[in-house]
């Protein structure tokens, strides 16, 4: 059974600080997605990671994929309030995405 675990589940951090969200998964896959969800809204695509060692960056967010360790990370640099949201990783397998439980990120001024 494909399992995806995210940690932490909740994260409060001060503006200007750096932090990392971790996404571990239980089976091999070469395709991992990161999404952002604002309260009451749908999911917004952030990154698609397709291969081992893939790294993508957009603004203050950077995502990486290590398929050997079955680990993806989402790194936040110098956090700002606008990044407050819930972040989900989703692993592609059996022709569908299996999502982690999400990380609720709150940026404190």
């Amino acid at each position: 059974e494909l399992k995806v675990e995210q940690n932490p589940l909740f994260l409060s951090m001060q503006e200007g600080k750096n932090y990392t969200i971790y996404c571990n998964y239980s089976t091999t896959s070469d395709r991992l997605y990161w999404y952002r969800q604002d309260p009451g809204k749908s999911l917004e695509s952030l990154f698609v990671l397709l291969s081992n060692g893939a790294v993508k960056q957009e603004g203050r967010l950077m995502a990486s994929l290590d398929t050997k360790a079955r680990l993806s990370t989402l790194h936040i640099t110098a956090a700002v309030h606008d990044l407050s949201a819930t972040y989900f990783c989703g692993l592609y397998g059996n022709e569908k995405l299996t999502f982690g439980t999400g990380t609720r990120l709150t940026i404190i001024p």
Partner: protein
Amino acid sequence: GAGVSQSPSNKVTEKGKDVELRCDPISGHTALYWYRQSLGQGLEFLIYFQGNSAPDKSGLPSDRFSAERTGGSVSTLTIQRTQQEDSAVYLCASRRPGQGYGYTFGSGTRLTVV
């Protein structure tokens, strides 16, 4: 259309009634997915359609749930004899063929069973 369209956006129904939720995927997206998100929870896979292939129904929680996709486009998720535990946001997503393309999600239908 420009995005995945879902209707209705909100639905309140009485326990025991049937409901239909609709999803219009992006034109040209051959794959269509239904997910369910309960309050404060992650996303639970329900069903997947790919072109004319038989759908993957492995995520449907009970036989009260069914879905169809007509003409490879619009999909309808039907919940019969709704129960309170069916209350959730039902999200539809579509994807164009080929590796590396993301899944585009609709804004969801918030279902409340009272």
